[in-house]
């Protein structure tokens, strides 16, 4: 990292937009914030006097709690809004809702939305900083950053590692964000699952696509499982959850194919014994809870950097 490098983005929307240097910079910053949460006084005044609105148009539990705690540990003032507590229910447009929030001199907007690109659209039209907490199947940058932080912490590097991401890639913003971030930092990314959920087009981004689990697990340094949603069965993407689990889930049998030090990751919430066997989720290779811990550090770093870049464009 060069001494001259400085963070200058007012928004964090997608890892697709970031350079490898910027991603590394966030991870480095997060290392220092992780230590803050290990102290007796788990709070720093970095965002004192700043107002952060957590606007979760799509419901969320763990991401919202993680962001809220990160904001509190940075001493920011916080307002939480959901779709049901906003004027969206009265038919107000998203842009009007956000402009009204902004008119209250808000510094940062942390936003989750069901529609791909909603945060990009909002960021183009407001001057406060926007942090994407997940949009549609598009992008969830802080989740990918915490995954990468965990991998780097455990493996000491990201470059050259084989990272297999398994499951419903088609509908996953976690997979897409991990893909851009990991590729930029030089990892080999493998997407695996049934062809209905893992389209070949991902190969154009530089990912290896495979439709048999064995191929993905072979030699993997990291296996990241995605939650499989029951709705996908009724939409005809696979015959049944049972069958999915049998052919595309990680269990005690196929885990034997993995190297002894392969990391098992999951963005949560886990469907135990569906995509991931309970004994594996709780086993020695699992870093699933550490991902949660690291999420806090990564979100503190992102909030600190985005708030600190100078606000107005």
């Amino acid at each position: 990292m060069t001494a001259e490098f400085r963070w200058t983005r007012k928004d964090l929307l997608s890892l697709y937009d970031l350079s490898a240097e910027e991603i590394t910079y966030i991870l480095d910053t997060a290392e220092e914030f992780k230590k803050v949460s290990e102290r007796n006084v788990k709070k720093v005044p970095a965002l004192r006097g700043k107002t952060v609105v957590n606007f979760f148009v799509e419901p969320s539990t763990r991401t919202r709690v993680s962001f809220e705690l990160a904001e509190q540990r940075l001493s920011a003032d916080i307002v939480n809004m959901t779709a049901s507590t906003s004027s969206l229910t009265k038919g107000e447009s998203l842009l009007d809702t956000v402009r009204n929030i902004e008119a209250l001199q808000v510094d940062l907007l942390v936003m989750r939305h069901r529609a791909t690109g909603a945060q990009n659209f909002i960021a183009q039209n407001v001057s406060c900083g926007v942090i994407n907490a997940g949009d549609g199947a598009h992008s969830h940058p802080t989740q990918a950053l915490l995954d990468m932080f965990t991998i780097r912490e455990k493996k000491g590097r990201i470059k050259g590692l084989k990272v297999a991401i398994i499951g419903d890639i088609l509908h996953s913003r976690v997979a897409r964000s991990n893909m851009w971030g990991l590729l930029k930092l030089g990892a080999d990314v493998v997407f695996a699952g049934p062809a209905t959920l893992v389209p070949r087009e991902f190969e154009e981004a530089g990912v290896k696509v495979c439709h048999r689990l064995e191929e993905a697990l072979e030699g993997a340094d990291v296996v990241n499982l995605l939650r499989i949603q029951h709705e996908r069965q009724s939409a005809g993407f696979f015959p049944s959850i049972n069958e999915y689990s049998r052919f595309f889930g990680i269990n005690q049998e196929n885990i034997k194919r993995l190297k002894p030090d392969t990391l098992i990751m999951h963005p949560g919430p886990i469907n135990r014994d569906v995509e991931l066997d309970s004994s594996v989720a709780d086993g020695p290779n699992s870093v699933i809870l550490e991902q949660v811990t690291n999420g806090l550090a990564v979100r503190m770093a992102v909030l600190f950097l985005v708030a600190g870049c100078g606000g107005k464009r």
Partner: protein
Amino acid sequence: MTTEKLLFNTGEVQDGVQHLCEAVLRDFKENPDYVLLGLHKQGVPLAERIADHLEEKTGTRPAVGKLDISMYRDDIGLRSGLPLIRETVIPFNMEDAKVILVDDVLSSGRAIRAALSAVTSFGRPACLRLAVLIDRGRPEFPIRADYVGFNAFDVDPAQKIVLKLTENDGEDAAVAIQWR
């Protein structure tokens, strides 16, 4: 491109460091339980140099910590970009510790104010002292240094004093640049 103007040459800076070390030494002899806490970035090598000196003269080397104050600054959002947060290492218990903060230049005093917040979030020290290499003499906060290498009261306030140290920059010198 920022233009640099040499303010103090290698000899002058090194004399200042020597003077600062001597000043700290006088109190350290009385209180050998003092610990040093260098502020990133130039306060860290300065603290090491002071520790070297104290060890050489007394045979006792004080504990040396490193402190990054970025999270405690009050000007977040006012600057054009953020520098990397560096590692904070506190190899001693802050409770009841006698701490000498070490920084390169005492200018507005805001960095030291941030450092006071930072330190107290680690515990409740018995006393806090401040050692700076260069004192500009016009702090914006009621903050004064206990130990000073040399004064630079006459430097134009429109200019920022940047200290270079061999450990980080390959040479000892102090230059003036225009504030951004």
